[in-house]
């Protein structure tokens, strides 16, 4: 094997010693390799091709399935966008309504709580409305020393000694309840 002219010229221009070297290949190649390799390669390629054909996908797909597929998908997307919204799909809209309802319930609840008449207040007011004569008469009838001595309509002390039940019963009798 000899070097082509342009290769030699180039090496000489580079002032390279390689220009003087032989281009022999020292490698050993099995006898008859190049005569046999063509047949071997062709046989192998054909065998490979056969194996590939055999192991090809066994499933079949309807004709024009893949070419029609994008259109099919687009149609499905369009259909889905026109469907009546479900309760679940309205969830984002319902949310502010839920908040408003919760606020309303709190306001009504708070208002009701603040304006419910308390029993203790009502009871005191009822006591205030009893005329003094009626009270004195009751005291006289019950002959209670403490009540008689310390009676005052504003005094809570005397009434503390009476049970709420007794007072209620009295008021009922007198038609104040």
């Amino acid at each position, binding site marked *: 094997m000899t070097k082509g002219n342009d290769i030699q010229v180039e090496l000489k221009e580079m002032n390279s010693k390689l220009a003087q*070297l032989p281009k022999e290949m*020292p490698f*050993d190649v099995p006898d008859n*390799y190049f005569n046999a390799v063509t047949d*071997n*390669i062709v046989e192998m390629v054909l065998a490979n091709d056969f194996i590939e054909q055999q192991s090809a996908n066994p499933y079949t797909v309807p004709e024009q399935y893949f070419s029609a597929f994008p259109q099919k998908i687009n149609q499905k997307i369009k259909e889905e966008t026109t469907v009546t919204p479900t309760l679940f799909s309205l969830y984002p809209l319902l949310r502010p309504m839920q908040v408003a309802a919760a606020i309303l319930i709190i306001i009504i609840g708070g208002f009701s709580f603040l304006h419910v008449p308390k029993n203790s207040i009502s009871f005191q007011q009822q006591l205030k409305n009893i005329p003094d004569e009626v009270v004195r008469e009751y005291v006289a009838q019950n002959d209670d020393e403490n009540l008689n001595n310390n009676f005052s309509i504003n005094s809570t002390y005397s009434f503390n000694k009476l049970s709420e039940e007794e007072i209620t019963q009295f008021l009922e009798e007198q038609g104040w309840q």
Partner: protein
Amino acid sequence: MDIQTKMIDDAAIVFAFKNEGRKEEAFTQLVKKYQERLYWHIRRMVVVHEDADDVLQNVFIKVWRHLDNFKEESGLYTWLYRIATNETMTWLELQKKRMSISLSDEESPVVEKLVAQKDFDAHKIEWKLQQAMQRLPEKQRIVFNLRYYDEMPYEQMSEVLGTSVGALKASYHFAVKKVENFILNHAL
């Protein structure tokens, strides 16, 4: 390579290959025409015959699979060399990964295989040249291989490797200097 094979035009091979009835015949002609050149291109890179044979078979399997889509924008010869070079590079990368020791870019996984070759003689200049070549970085080795042994014009090499002509000339220049230095430093 006989005269009849040499005469067969690349375009005629490609044309015949695309005809289902002549596909096998055309492929056989193509293998006959290029097997030896591609074998040596690969062998100088991988060193061992069995490895070169494996890579060569892979190259022709790829050719069989893709020749139908060959656009003929580049020559068949360039296209075949590109496949052979890529297959060889992939094989070398795989060898590097398989080896437990890490190799630097300048170390080829085949240096040790070279000295194990039949008839290896470290004193002989042709073996020394191979040793020097195996110590080149991979891409520089391919450039040296294509230019020095295959005598491929830079323009064609540019198509095979996807690198500019200027870069290839510079790469070859450096490769020649390195090979020369190795031989001079390892002179008898």
